[in-house]
């Protein structure tokens, strides 16, 4: 009986251990399951086994024996009078012991029936398992949060450039070599005076002419590696211990990749990288003074003026020349004489503290020089054309920048020129193209916006804003626009009016618009006044001169008075008045080229504002509007253009008036117009359509033809990237897609859609087509025909 009690005791103890072990296992499982289910199961099993082993190996469990159990009875039940051991004793008992044994056995039997001995059995303990269960539930409920935390941490680690040792080991075991580490050294051309830099990016951006050195560590250094750059044959990389080196020169934007030799064949590695060449920009020349491109001096004036220009380059200026051409005489007898001048050191004022000096010139400086036409051996009636020619320090060939020409006229009294009979829109023809260029560059900036960082984006936008400002001023100076600067600004006069100085007719014309507009407002016309009235007005104006700024109807029949009036008052009157002898007396109308141009300048103001605020998207509509008005101005101008008709060859006397038409031959011409006149756009269109269709498919696999299309696209994009470096990224994507034969690239989910978006931008806007109409009628043609025939000619 004792043995059965002992066995029960052991079983209960074991059950307790098992319950605790299972609870512990559950706890461990819930603690680890967010990491990995397999790991959690393994850990749980391990913890159960360990827990059981520990429980079974404890002294507490090992000490469970019949002797100890009987002792336990003695301790727990005083009724046994410390004689429970007698229950197992069989032989050699004394009488007293026998008596005691009998007594104990009776007690034992009694306790068995009453169940008192059951109390001695260990209790099943639920507290610890219950606690573990609670903790398990808590773990389980927190599992999702822990998992997301772990995943985010894990993904951060994955994106990191630093590969773990484990990864490296895996890479080394992989049969296909992979890149383990890389370092790119870029050495700039010596003329830039810039220190070499190192980069950890394989997509390289380098100044044109830079030397590139790459040190690459591959997972299988025993192989032979090659560096392949687009358009060039692969070159073997130099081995340096376990690393490989390649050298290249950044002469043009290109793609490059690595390959290795296996069984006498070159096998390309995954990954296509870009070399984006940043070009050295030519020096920028801004003429600060004179503010107009045309300067005119009267015969009696002192022909002195100064040229003040700002010259800026990204790396330095090597030479600045002033080219002056003096024209003497007129008509066929005109003679030109060229002279080259240079600025003295004292004429140069550096603009920035950090402006470095090369070859005697600064990176950013103002250059000022005073001129006297007498010193140029000019005489009244001569003209001189000044322009600045700046060479930057780029090597091996310097880049030349030219300023706009400044035209200086020393007028003879006899030929005071009414320079503005009709606005000379084509006087600065290059600026018409500039507005178009600004639009093109703004569109490019918008399209490439995502590829630039914020600073670069703002820099380009501001630069475009300055160009727009320049253009606006160029037009404005012919239209009497105000710029809020200069002496003329205070009087609300045209730019270029220099206070008390004698004003040339060219400058005076600038204010004519204002006068014309005033005419419109006053609803007056010059024709309403008699000539007598004109004379009276003239006298009145001479008496009052500057007193009355409202005198918009003063007329001057003698232009010479302008040069005779040394005070400049006459010019001021010209500024606000108009002349019947001039074409420009006509009031502004909607068909007037000048009014179109003024509207264009207004739009330019807005465009400049938004460009300066780095909002090219907002600026673009104004740019277009300005461009449209300029075009309208040019169309309007054509009204005055002289038309040249066809001049037929002279007809001989024999053939004249004979009415013979035999010589006129019929002829037939058959031609095929190429629908893909622009092969680039057609290629981009085809590629876009292909990507668009493939995107709708699940896990598309590219055919050879599709790969070829993508490769062609890559080549074209690469060629275009010479002018637009951002396109090199898309050339690389296109090439990667072609190589991967799928639209889903590793580590680049949006590559295909980025390429698609860029292609859409590059495709030109299509023209409308001459289409056939699609009839949507419920009456069929047969019925209709019958009706028409029945109605005869009534239709």
């Amino acid at each position, binding site marked *: 009986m004792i043995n059965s009690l002992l066995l029960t005791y052991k079983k209960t103890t074991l059950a307790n251990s098992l319950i605790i072990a299972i609870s512990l296992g559950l706890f461990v499982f819930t603690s680890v399951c967010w990491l990995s289910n397999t790991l959690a199961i393994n850990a749980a099993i391990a913890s159960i086994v360990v827990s059981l082993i520990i429980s079974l190996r404890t002294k507490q469990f090992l000490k469970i024996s019949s002797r100890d159990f009987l002792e336990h009875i003695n301790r727990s039940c005083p009724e046994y009078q410390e004689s429970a051991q007698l229950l197992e004793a069989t032989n050699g008992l004394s009488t007293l012991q026998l008596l005691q044994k009998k007594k104990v056995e009776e007690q034992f039997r009694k306790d068995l029936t009453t169940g008192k001995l059951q109390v001695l059995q260990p209790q099943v303990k639920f507290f610890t398992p219950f606690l573990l269960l609670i903790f398990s539930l808590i773990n389980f409920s927190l599992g999702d949060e822990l998992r997301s935390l772990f995943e985010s941490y894990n993904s951060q680690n994955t994106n990191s450039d630093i590969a773990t040792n484990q990864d490296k080991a895996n890479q080394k075991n992989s049969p296909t070599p992979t890149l383990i580490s890389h370092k790119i050294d870029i050495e700039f051309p010596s003329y830039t005076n810039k220190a070499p830099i190192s980069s950890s990016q394989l997509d390289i951006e380098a100044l044109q002419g830079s030397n590139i050195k790459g040190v690459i560590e591959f997972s299988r250094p025993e192989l032979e590696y090659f560096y392949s750059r687009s358009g060039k044959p692969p070159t073997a990389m130099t081995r340096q211990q376990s690393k490989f080196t390649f050298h290249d020169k950044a002469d043009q934007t290109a793609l490059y990749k690595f390959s290795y030799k296996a069984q006498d064949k070159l096998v390309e590695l995954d990954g296509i990288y870009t070399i984006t060449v940043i070009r050295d920009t030519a020096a920028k020349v801004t003429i600060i003074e004179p503010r107009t491109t045309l300067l005119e001096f009267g015969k009696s004036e002192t022909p002195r003026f100064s040229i003040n220009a700002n010259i800026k380059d990204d790396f330095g200026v090597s030479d600045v020349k002033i080219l002056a051409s003096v024209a003497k005489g007129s008509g066929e007898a005109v003679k030109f004489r060229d002279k080259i001048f240079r600025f003295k050191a004292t004429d140069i004022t550096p603009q920035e503290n950090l402006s470095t000096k090369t070859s005697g010139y600064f990176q950013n400086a103002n250059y000022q020089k005073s001129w006297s036409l007498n010193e140029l051996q000019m005489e009244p009636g001569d003209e001189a054309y000044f322009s600045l020619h700046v060479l930057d320090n780029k090597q091996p060939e310097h880049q030349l920048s030219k300023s706009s020409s400044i035209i200086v006229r020393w007028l003879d009294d006899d030929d005071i020129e009414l320079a503005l009979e009709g606005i000379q829109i084509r006087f600065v023809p290059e600026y018409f193209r500039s507005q178009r260029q600004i639009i093109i560059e703004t569109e490019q900036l918008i399209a490439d916006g995502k590829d630039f960082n914020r600073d670069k984006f703002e820099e380009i936008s501001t630069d475009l804003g300055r160009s727009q400002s320049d253009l606006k001023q160029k037009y404005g100076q012919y239209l009497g626009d105000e710029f809020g600067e200069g002496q003329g600004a205070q009087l609300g006069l045209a730019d270029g009016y220099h206070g008390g100085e004698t004003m040339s007719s060219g400058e005076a014309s600038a204010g004519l618009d204002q006068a014309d507009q005033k005419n419109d407002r006053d609803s007056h016309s010059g024709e309403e006044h008699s000539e007598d009235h004109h004379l009276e007005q003239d006298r009145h104006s001479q008496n009052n001169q500057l007193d009355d700024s409202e005198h918009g109807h003063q007329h001057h029949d003698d232009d010479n008075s302008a040069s005779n009036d040394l005070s400049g008052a006459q010019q001021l009157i010209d500024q606000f008045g108009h002349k019947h002898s001039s074409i420009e007396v006509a009031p502004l109308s909607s068909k007037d080229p000048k009014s179109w141009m003024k509207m264009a300048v207004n739009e330019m103001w807005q465009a400049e504002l938004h460009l300066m605020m780095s909002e090219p998207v907002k600026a673009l509509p104004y740019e277009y509007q300005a461009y449209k008005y300029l*075009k*309208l101005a040019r169309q309007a101008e054509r009204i005055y253009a002289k038309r040249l008709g066809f001049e037929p060859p002279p007809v001989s006397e024999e053939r004249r008036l004979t009415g013979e038409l035999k010589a006129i031959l*019929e002829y*037939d011409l058959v*031609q095929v*117009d190429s629908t893909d006149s622009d092969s680039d756009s057609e290629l981009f269109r085809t590629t876009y359509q292909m990507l668009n269709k493939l995107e*709708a498919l699940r896990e598309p696999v590219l055919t050879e033809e599709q790969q070829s299309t993508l490769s062609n696209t890559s080549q074209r994009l690469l060629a275009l990237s010479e002018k637009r470096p951002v396109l090199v990224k898309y050339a690389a994507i296109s090439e990667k897609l072609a190589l991967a034969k799928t639209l889903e690239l590793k580590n680049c989910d949006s590559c295909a859609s980025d390429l698609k978006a860029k292609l859409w931008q590059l495709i030109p806007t299509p023209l409308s*087509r001459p289409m*056939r109409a699609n009839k949507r009628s419920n009456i069929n*043609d047969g019925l209709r025909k019958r009706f028409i025939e029945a109605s005869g000619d009534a239709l």
Partner: protein
Amino acid sequence: MTDWNILFDSTTNFVILLLVVSTFSYSTFKLNRRQASRPLSYRIFFSSLNLIFSLSVLGLLLQPSFPSSEPTLATIYIANQGNLPKELKSNEYLYLKDDVELEHDYLARYRQKIIYQPEQVLLKQPTLKRLLIIGDGLLPSQLAQFHHLELSIQPNPVTTGVIYPSWQPNLDAGSQLEFSATFQSGDQSIYRVKLINPAQQVEDEVSVINGDDFVLNALPKVTGNHLYQLVISDQTENVVNEQSIPIVVNQSISAKILIVQSAPSFESKHIQNWAGEIGAEILIRTRISKDKFMTRSTNFSQPLKSKPQFLISEKVLTQFDVLVLDARELQFFDQQEIGNLAKAAKDGLGIVVRTDGSLSSEDSDQLPDFLSRFGIKPITQVIRVDLIAHNQLDDSRIFADSVLLSAEPLFNIQKPVKHLAPLIVTPQGYVVVAQKHYGLGKISLSVIKQSHQLRTSSQAKAHSQLWSHIIENTARAYNAPEITIENEMGIILQNHKIDLCRESDPLTEKQSAAESSEIDFSKSNMKIKEAAEIRTLNLSSSLTSVKVDLRTTIMNSRKHCGSYWPSASGWQKVIVSGIDRYFYVHPANSWLAAQQNTRLNATQTRIATWNPATFESDHQKPINDWYYWLLIVVCSSLIWIERKFWSNQ
């Protein structure tokens, strides 16, 4: 029991009643006699059993009905996402639209109150007489289920977005996408609406306030399926609404063009350059002497064999879709050529007569008969017109921006000319291109001068739009079979029914019902003409294919229609008899403002037009037959026991 409404509407009913009452009276009399010794209570009890039995039989035979005591008013909440009623009382139901998701707790709490189709409320409350709709309202098809109910509505606050959206889901390459809509918002703030192209660039934008109509334009660059985006943002540039605008750009078939002119002109040269570059077949015949011609054909796969003198023949003209000629050249035509021209026009050839200054009042009188019927006395004054140029046929703009051209207007739109439709009208109301139908063809008269200046001034796009518009609306029409997709919402939405229809080409179907003398509606209605196959093309699901039977419609025997409920959003393709068409299914929760507006308008229209007199009726509830049978069985059993065991005592 006073409310019992037993129908004595027939003699039979009356006879039945009389018989039952007589039987009851007789059996009660017999019971009282037989059991006279029994206590009164005993007799009353068994008399009552007899009475109940009789009434049960009577009820079973006459089927009387009660006025229903169930409620006659119910409320349906049509809740939008995030705007759910806090609690649903008795007789209140929540109609769960596809675009609304409920929290689990809410769903569990009101499971019995949630309906997935509005008509389910009728099953829950069959005696319903009035229905209050709280929310956006119901669609016409849903409202049709409640034709007998009196409806009222408490609308939700308006959703910020666009209503009445309209665009061309199918475009020809080179055509402009024109999106028009009305803006709706709950406040009077200024919002910015942008149209964004597939390259994520803004194509067009406009500032709007509540109630503003607006138009946004874009020019798709490539053929294929594209998704433009309509983005509405507030003043702080926060996006408040974003919708997809799907379009399918098709490569259209170019018209074959014949240009006949009295002398070389820049105008025709530039038309030839434009059409030639695009790949259209174009032939120019230029008169260089009285009977000498110069011809230039572009893009013809096989050169025309006809000599230039015989181009204006019936045989040659049938090979072209449109003939562009100048008015002066018309005067060189002999009677046979004029006859050929008239016949070709009757047969469908489009003719564009370009006056370009050559048509004076005197010339107009000398024009061929069919052209002189234009009855136009052109205004001799040449004006320079700002051609924003509205297309009068569908009131769409031809050019996005204004274009300056010279023209000698034909007439003013304020003084219309009979039989003459204005094709291009200036904003000032001057008609510069007019058109008339002539047989199957159309004749257009254009007085626009020197439109080629557009090409020479970098406005080639405007030039192409102008001539594309004139040619498309004049050229020979082709009755291409097409698949139409219609639905009551105007936008194809997930889980909303759409009607797929295909109209067959009468030229290929010789036995057209329209031509037959008798149309058998009963047969044609039931006949399954063909099946449409619909393929889902989105990435999220594998390619699936669904078959939809198209049946001949009663109204048009050439039209076959079927219904389809798209379960997945995204691009889908329908194929019928080898013809296919792509369409886009919007997610159920898109275009919420437009959906709200459609539902609200339909419900308000229904409320305004409902005539209560038509549907006035009392709601009666009959008693279930089982009760009668139960009472009959119980009573007859007790009466039988009483007769069997207690009668002898």
